[in-house]
């Protein structure tokens, strides 16, 4: 691939990742910036599809290995969830495209946007991870192993934050509107977003290594299990939001009027 093309690709990829992290920090960027950055991200995602048009063209050609099948499914889900995120976001716009406000009932659109945006976050992490082995080809196996081990620890913390911040509730349409912690420092919100994304990227990465089978599979599977165990152990050991060392950027504050979710139930006791 020519260098200029490669640079364009990388720039768009980095741009999308940075914007994703910023988009998940609504209370830090404010509502107007959130909408404008969202429009920007939509543009980058469209450009990303155009850059990779040959991937679309080759969908029905060639053999499907396990890795390719998983990757293709994931990409399909990702493009759908992102499209819905963008469209629903626009349908409740107050700043960027306010003329679209209310084309579909806003309360419905809000719940869809909250859910689809969190699915997009998870799927983008996995998508990123699936492409990491290709990026690390130049490194020695020992270095890759060490990097994997270090990332497993950070990934575990990311999972803990993901659980603690009530993200699964968003995935399963249990959040009608977001409760956000506006007092949390913006930098900390972003840092947590990085950690959470890293968990999913790590899982995608190790899954890709295991699926491609060019290295010993059991190592990558073991690392995935380790990351999950770390995350769940932290979540079990530090249940109370008030006491936990990480204060949540997306803390689902005690919802009034009886909204029970999986995670608030646990932390209320």
């Amino acid at each position: 691939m020519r260098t200029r093309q490669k640079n364009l690709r990388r720039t768009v990829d980095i741009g999308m990742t940075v914007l994703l992290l910023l988009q998940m920090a609504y209370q830090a960027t404010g509502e107007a910036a959130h909408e404008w950055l969202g429009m920007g991200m939509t543009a980058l995602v469209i450009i990303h599809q155009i850059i990779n048009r040959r991937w679309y063209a080759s969908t029905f050609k060639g053999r499907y290995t396990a890795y390719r099948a998983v990757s293709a499914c994931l990409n399909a889900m990702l493009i759908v969830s992102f499209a819905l995120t963008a469209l629903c976001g626009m349908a409740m716009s107050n700043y960027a495209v306010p003329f679209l406000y209310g084309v579909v009932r806003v309360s419905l659109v809000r719940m869809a946007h909250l859910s689809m945006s969190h699915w997009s976050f998870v799927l983008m992490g996995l998508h990123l991870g699936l492409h990491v082995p290709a990026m690390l080809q130049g490194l020695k196996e020992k270095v890759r192993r060490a990097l994997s081990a270090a990332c497993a620890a950070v990934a575990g913390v990311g999972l803990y934050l993901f659980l603690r911040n009530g993200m699964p509730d968003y995935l399963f349409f249990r959040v009608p509107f977001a409760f956000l912690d506006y007092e949390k420092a913006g930098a900390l919100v972003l840092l947590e977003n990085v950690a959470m994304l890293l968990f999913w990227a790590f899982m995608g990465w190790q899954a890709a290594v295991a699926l491609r089978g060019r290295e010993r599979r059991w190592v990558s599977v073991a690392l995935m299990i380790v990351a999950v165990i770390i995350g769940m152990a932290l979540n079990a050991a530090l249940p109370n939001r008030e006491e936990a060392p990480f204060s949540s950027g997306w803390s689902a504050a005690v919802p009034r009027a009886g909204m029970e979710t999986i995670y608030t139930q646990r932390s209320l006791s």
Partner: protein
Amino acid sequence: MKKAIAIMMALCLLLGVGALAEETVRSDALVIYFSATGTTKGVAEKLANVTGADLYEIVPAEPYTDEDLNYSDRSTRATREQDDPQTRPEIGGEDIELTGYATVYIGYPIWWGEEPRIMCTFVESHDFTGITVIPFCTSGGSGIGRSGDDLAQLAGSGDWLKGARLNGNVGEDELRAWVDGLK
């Protein structure tokens, strides 16, 4: 004797007028608010403190119960009202006269991304001519969005600023900084 009584009565009259004068001297700023669970009320009270403004609470004729506010049930009152932009819940309690105020802060919680419909009832039934109106809101996560602009349009009078979302436990310093920044 008669002179002494006359002087005493004059003094009493003066004191009376003085007392009366104090009661009718108002601030030129007013903080109006509607609060269902008390969050907005807390912010409104702090704001009134910081600005030396008078305080007025919009009291619904039919108070909102906990069940009314249950947002996980689509059939409950608050959700139904927010789904219908035309509905106008009645206001109870004493009314307020806005003439004489130069600045009015108007505060409310955000329900389903928008202003509670009772705020629409209020702005449609009051005249904001010659007044600078500053909306403020509290919320779980939403910003002020289009609620301020909506109310400005429904009011049809007054000079409405953009306003802002304030934290439920906003500090007085932060409030003061915001108010100063508005000038």
